[in-house]
C-alpha cells in the first residue's frame, strides 16, 4: 500500500512541477504548484506528519497560493516575451540544473539506499509538535512572530502606497494580456485576439479596472 501511494502521489507531484515549468502563464504555474502541494500533503500523511500535512493544505495551498492567484488575477499577468538573458539562462541553466540534480540525488541515493521507511502507525502528533514548539523552540517561535508582524506592516506599507504620479494603468496592453495562454491559441482565442477590444484576459471594463484594483489592494 505504502509504495503504491508513494509512487502515485510522487508522480502527481513531479507532473505538477513539470507543468509548472512548461506553462507560460503564471496562473497555470500557480495552479500546478497547488497540485504539487496537495500531493506533498498526502506524502506527509504517509510519513506520519498529520499536523504538517493539514497545515500544508490550510496555510500553503489555502492561503499563500490563494494570495498568488489573487495577485496574478489582479495584475492580469502573462508571460513576458523572452529576452536575450533568458536564452543565456537556458544555455547555462540546463547543465547546471542537471548537474545539481545528479549530485544531490547521487549522494542521497548512495547514503540512504538501505533505510526502509513505511507507515508504521507512528504519528508525530499535534501534542508532540506543540510540546517541542513551546519548550525547545520557544525563542524561534517568538522571533517568527516578530517577523510576521514586520511582514504585515511591510505588506500594508507597500500595497497601500500613496497615489503614484500618474493614475496607475496597472495593466499590460490589452492585446497582450491574453491571460489564458497554455497550449497554443484555440480558434476562439485567435478570433478574440484579432479584435483587441475584446481581449481574452481583459475581464473588467477599462474604466472600472484601475479603480477596482486599487480599492482591493488597499482594503486588504
Amino acid at each position, binding site marked *: 500500500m505504502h509504495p503504491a501511494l508513494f509512487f502515485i502521489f510522487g508522480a502527481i507531484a513531479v507532473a505538477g512541477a513539470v507543468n509548472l515549468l512548461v506553462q507560460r502563464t503564471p496562473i497555470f504555474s500557480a495552479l500546478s504548484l497547488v497540485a504539487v502541494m496537495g500531493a506533498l500533503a498526502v506524502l506527509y500523511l504517509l510519513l506520519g506528519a498529520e499536523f504538517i500535512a493539514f497545515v500544508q493544505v490550510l496555510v500553503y495551498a489555502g492561503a499563500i497560493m490563494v494570495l498568488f492567484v*489573487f495577485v496574478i488575477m489582479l495584475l492580469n499577468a502573462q508571460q513576458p516575451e523572452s529576452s536575450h538573458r533568458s536564452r543565456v539562462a537556458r544555455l547555462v541553466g540546463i547543465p547546471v540544473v542537471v548537474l545539481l540534480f545528479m549530485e544531490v540525488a547521487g549522494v542521497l541515493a548512495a547514503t540512504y539506499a538501505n533505510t526502509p521507511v513505511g507507515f508504521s502507525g507512528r504519528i508525530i502528533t*499535534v501534542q508532540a509538535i506543540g510540546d517541542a514548539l513551546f519548550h525547545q523552540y520557544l525563542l524561534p517561535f517568538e522571533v517568527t512572530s516578530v517577523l510576521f508582524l514586520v511582514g504585515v506592516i511591510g505588506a500594508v506599507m507597500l500595497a497601500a502606497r500613496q497615489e503614484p504620479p500618474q493614475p496607475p494603468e496597472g495593466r499590460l496592453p490589452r492585446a497582450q494580456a491574453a491571460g*489564458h495562454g497554455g497550449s497554443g491559441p484555440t480558434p476562439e482565442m485567435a478570433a*478574440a485576439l484579432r479584435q483587441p477590444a475584446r481581449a481574452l484576459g481583459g475581464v*473588467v471594463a477599462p474604466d472600472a479596472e484601475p479603480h477596482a484594483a486599487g480599492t482591493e489592494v488597499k482594503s486588504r
Partner: protein
Amino acid sequence: MPLGIFFLVSLVKVVITLAVLLTLVAYVQLAERRIVARIQSRVGPTRVGPSGFLQPAADTFKFILKEDITPTDAHPFLYVLAPVISVVLALTALSVVPIGGTFHLFGYPIQFQVTDINVGLLFVLGVTSLGVYGIVLAGWSSNSKYSFLGSLRGGSQMLSYELALGLALIGPIMLAGSLDLRQIVNAQNHIWYIVPEFVAFCIYLTAAFAETNRIPFDLPEAEGELGAGYHTEYSSMKFAMFFLAEYVNMITVSCIATIVFLGGWHGPMFGPALLRVFLPVIWFALKVAFFLFLYIWVRGTLPRFRYDQLMGFGWKFLVPLALANIVVTGAVLSFH
C-alpha cells in the same frame, strides 16, 4: 476490521451520506424559500406537489434541462474546473464530520461518520480553505466584469474571515485538548462549550456566515450590484454545482458549530436499545437544523454589509476579539 470489509463499509457510508446530503440540500433550499416568503408576507412555492413538497425535484429538472452556456471568451478548462472544485471540496469536508456515536453491526464497530481521523477539525478547515479557489477561478475564467469583481471580493473576504473562523475554534480546542471531532464532542459531556466559550461561538457564527457567502456577507454574489457575482456567467448544471456547494458548505459549518459548541450528539437518552442508537443522530440533526434555520432567518431579516464595513469588521473587530478570547481561555485554563 479486514480491509475488504472496511472498504465495503466505507462505500456504503459514502453512498448513504451523499444521498442524505443531496436530499437535505434540496429541502433546505425549499425550506429557505418558504421561510423567507413567510418573513416577507408571501407564500412561497406551493404548486408542485402537496404544499410545494416536490418543488426541489422540479428545480432539479429545470437545472438539467437549461441550456449550458459557455461564454465565448471564457477560458474553457478553468471555466469547467471552477464549479467542480467548489462542489468536490464542499463534499470532501463533510466526510470527517461525525453525526453520532458508535454502534455494532455483525460484531464490527460502525461509526456515524465516513472516516475518523485524528485531526478532523484541521481537515475541515484545510479543505474549506481550498474552496476559495472555486470562487476565484470562476470569476477569472468567465471573463466578465461582474464575475471578476465578485471573485475578487469573495477571495479577500474568505481569506480574511477564515482567520477569524480558525481563531474562534482555538478556544474550544484548548478546552477539549484535541483536534479529533469525536473527542471534542466527548469532552462536552458535562457542559457544552457554548457556555464557557460564548464569545468564540459568536465569532465563529459570524465568520461562518462570511465563509459561506451568505447574507449579510454575500458580497461575492451581491445580486443587487454585481449581477450574480462570481457565478454570473454560469448556467444549468454548472450553476447547480455552485448552488450545491454553497448549501453543503452551510451544512458543514453548521455541523462544526454543533460539534464544537453545542455538544454534538449529546442529549437526553431514553427508550429501547435501537432508539438509543439513533437518538444521538436525531439530536445532532435537530441542532444542525437550528443553525440552518438561523441562516435562513438572518437572510430574511438583515441587509448586506458594505465592502469596507465587511473588511473592517473582520480585521479590526473579529480577529482581535478572537485573539483576546484565546488569551483569556489560556489564562483561565492555566489557573485551574
